[in-house]
């Protein structure tokens, strides 16, 4: 019998370490789901009730049900850092601005604002006709309190995304314990006037304040109960909806907030978020009518099924471009990847169109630039205003460049190299196909290695790799969100890239108030990244979802999030 206990113990330990060793990447990706490889092109047939034009009236139960896969880690905007929480927050909170039915940024809690001459001071007029779900008025003080609370270096729980507020004058200093709360550039001049001073002229600031880190919290409710955000009963929010039920790890329900100023635009009575961790279960639930929406942004349709639906021209399938790029990175602190010619050779010796059509199977757009097409420029998209393509695939040229590059580095042959990616069928298939192309076209052997999400991240941040898969989804609608990743010392510069000329372009773009000048600087920066093959773009990502035909006026925002605030049901 002693033996029995011993065996139980051993079994548990083995289970523990095995789980620790393998696991999967779902969680990592949930945080940053837009980086996953699945989806397709903008297939037509958007009969799923989007983009207006139709005049059907709401009928039937005004309840919308979708899957968010897992428990939202928090519903306190200050602590948020993932798009499960963000998807709910976008319904229950509203920032100074909001997204209208066409995806444009329009006045939200602020009814109007003025911007100073130097583009650094914003004065917002807060609307007087909106209240918190608890009945307290929404005031400028709430905003000041919320932002300072997020920046507080001694906060009850440190805010992981506090850096999103670092655009504000004095914010970074206070947040890192070097400044003081009084020097932070946000101030309620009176109950309904909010003054915000920025460090640099930030042209996209009005779209930033529509991001969850900038959402206000109810000062009165938070001060009354520090655990206000843990349960539905003590929760307070100011958006179109309010939290009505939260069964942890099972479901979240939000209902219309009658204290919200724009109730006339809110047609749904209730949104129900299910937490289904299994994508097959999600699909079955959608098929049997237990869900009205499946797939991105917070769910997943199994990739083979997406392919099948595309081929069947299933009218409920909608595939949208998202502001996300799938690319490979080279460790430039390591020979021969420090050499431009070697990197370029690897980049131009693969066939992106073939990859997208035969391997990724969603018909994503092959990428010959870094900033995805949905990112705005000054008038049109950033892509349209700059260059569509920065390089061409050319096997002969690649062979020549590789030989030259290796010679420059004093190497006689291409060294043993490994390509790492995190656990996912799609990443695995792409890695296999790419290394096969390198083998055929360049005659080099690159091994592939799958790593569990956190191990993968650890290796990437500590530059412990040769070539790695990478992805990036926009934080805000501006090319800067992609381009400032690779300045020297950036926390996201996990390729060991150091280029003072590049840093200069980005820094100049930070401080200039001249929009034309700024666009030019950003365009130059992207060109530099591409000319030096600093990263190897593979494709611009898309998000695939299934939407029931009776769901109207939901839409996918530029960065692949769902907007259900104007939705209604017409059964």
């Amino acid at each position, binding site marked *: 019998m002693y033996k029995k206990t011993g065996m139980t113990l051993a079994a548990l330990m083995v289970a523990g370490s095995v789980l620790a060793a393998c696991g999967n990447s779902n969680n990592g990706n949930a945080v940053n789901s837009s980086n996953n490889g699945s989806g397709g092109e903008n297939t037509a047939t958007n009969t799923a009730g989007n983009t207006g034009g139709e005049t059907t009236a709401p009928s039937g139960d005004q309840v919308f049900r979708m899957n968010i896969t*897992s428990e939202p880690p928090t519903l306190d905007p200050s602590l948020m850092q993932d798009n499960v929480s963000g998807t709910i927050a976008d319904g229950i909170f509203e920032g100074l601005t909001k997204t209208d039915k066409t995806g444009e940024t329009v006045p939200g809690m602020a009814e109007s604002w003025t911007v100073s001459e130097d583009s650094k001071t914003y004065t917002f007029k807060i609307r007087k006709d909106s209240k918190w779900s608890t009945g307290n008025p929404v005031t400028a003080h709430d905003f000041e309190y919320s932002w300072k609370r997020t920046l507080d270096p001694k906060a009850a729980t440190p805010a992981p995304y506090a850096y999103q507020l670092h655009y504000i004058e004095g914010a970074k200093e206070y947040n890192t314990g070097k400044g003081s709360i009084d020097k932070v550039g946000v101030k309620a001049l009176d109950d309904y006037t909010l003054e915000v001073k920025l460090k640099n002229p930030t042209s996209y600031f009005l779209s930033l304040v529509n991001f969850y880190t900038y959402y206000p919290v109810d000062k009165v409710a938070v001060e009354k109960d520090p655990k206000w955000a843990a349960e539905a009963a003590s929760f307070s929010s100011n958006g179109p909806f309010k939290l009505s039920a939260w069964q942890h790890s099972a479901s979240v329900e939000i209902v219309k907030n009658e204290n919200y100023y724009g109730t006339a635009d809110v047609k749904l009575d209730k949104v129900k978020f299910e937490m289904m961790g299994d994508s097959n279960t999600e699909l079955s639930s959608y098929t*049997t009518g237990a869900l009205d929406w499946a797939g991105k942004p917070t769910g997943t349709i199994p990739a083979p099924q997406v392919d099948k639906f595309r081929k069947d021209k299933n009218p409920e399938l909608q595939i949208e471009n998202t502001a996300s790029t799938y690319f490979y990175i080279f460790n430039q602190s390591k020979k021969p990847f420090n050499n431009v010619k070697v990197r370029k050779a690897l980049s131009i010796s693969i066939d992106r169109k073939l990859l997208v059509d035969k391997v990724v199977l969603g018909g994503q757009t092959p990428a010959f630039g870094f900033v995805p097409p949905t990112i705005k420029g000054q008038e049109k998209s950033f892509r349209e205003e700059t260059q569509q393509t920065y390089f061409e695939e050319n096997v002969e040229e690649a062979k020549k460049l590789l030989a030259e590059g290796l010679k420059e580095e004093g190497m006689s042959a291409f060294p043993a190299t490994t390509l790492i990616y995190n656990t996912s069928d799609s990443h695995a298939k792409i890695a296999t196909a790419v290394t096969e192309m390198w083998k055929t076209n360049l005659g080099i052997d690159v091994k592939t290695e799958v790593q569990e999400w956190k191990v993968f991240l650890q290796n990437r941040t500590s530059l412990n790799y040769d070539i790695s898969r990478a992805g990036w989804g926009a934080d805000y609608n501006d090319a800067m969100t992609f381009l400032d990743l690779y300045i020297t010392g950036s926390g996201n510069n996990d390729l060991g890239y150091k280029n003072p000329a590049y840093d200069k372009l980005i820094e100049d773009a930070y401080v200039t108030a001249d929009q034309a000048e700024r666009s030019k600087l950003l365009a130059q920066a992207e060109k530099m990244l591409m000319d030096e093959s600093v990263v190897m773009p593979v494709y611009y990502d898309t998000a695939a979802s299934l939407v029931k035909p009776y769901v109207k006026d939901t839409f996918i925002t530029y960065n692949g999030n769902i907007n259900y605030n104007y939705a209604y049901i017409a059964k």
Partner: protein
Amino acid sequence: MIRFIGRRFLNILLSLFVLATLTFFLMKAVPGNPFLDEKTPKAARDALMAFYGLDKALWKQYLIYLGNLLQGDLGISYKTPGQTVTQIISQSFLYSLKLGAVAIVVSVIVGVSLGMVSAMYNRKLIDKIAVVISILGISIPNFVVASVTQFYIGAELRWLPVAGLDGPLSYILPTFALSALPIAFIARLTRSSMLEVLTADYIRTAKAKGLSPIRITLRHGLRNAILPVVTYLGPMTANIITGSVVVEKIYNVPGLGQFFTNSVTNRDYPLIMGITLFYAVILMFARFLADIGYAMVDPRMKKSTKGG
């Protein structure tokens, strides 16, 4: 007897301590940390590490954890900072327990009946069918049963809900997936021990007295044949309650199972520890109770424990 119980109890405590220690250091040895994420800058990560005391020396962290553990404090989940580990475990274990209890009852009733019928019609067609069913039950893993029944009965035929635990109907499919193996196992146990019992002298006497076959089987046969099934109940209960990870995921039951893997992927240290210890306690106590029960029922066990 008291000495036996006392020694077994001490043994459990010691095992738990060893388990907690090993899990703690193994889990810390895995690369990566709870706050590592593509979009969280290093400064914010470091602040969080310091906030949760993860910047201290490993042995200090270990002592602090043990100290809290002794006071019954399992800590806060790093992934969902609004919830304590104890809250998470108690909320979700309730779902696992509800589903598990139904599965256990079904397993015993169906398994024993199947085994009995099998034994009564030994080597006849019914017996052969029952044997085939048992073999299928034992050899098909529960996640296959779960996925296949979910797809055909839930999604295609739409007879039953595909997911969730709302209402009695939604229990049918997950219960079936969970109890397929125990049913098969119990059926085989019952059958073989029943066959053995049915050849015993007292059964012959009962037959000679002219009792009806059903009365013989139920009253005289089953009563004696059920002992092995009772012993199997302990580990089975523990297995069903802790082993439903995959079935829970497939049927979207918000039980504890999902956290078993997710906590490791998230490097949610307090949750990993909490769940490992919780499962260990359940497993060990299930065996502990089975051992005590056995010692009480079987005189031979009593004797051997006195000697040891």
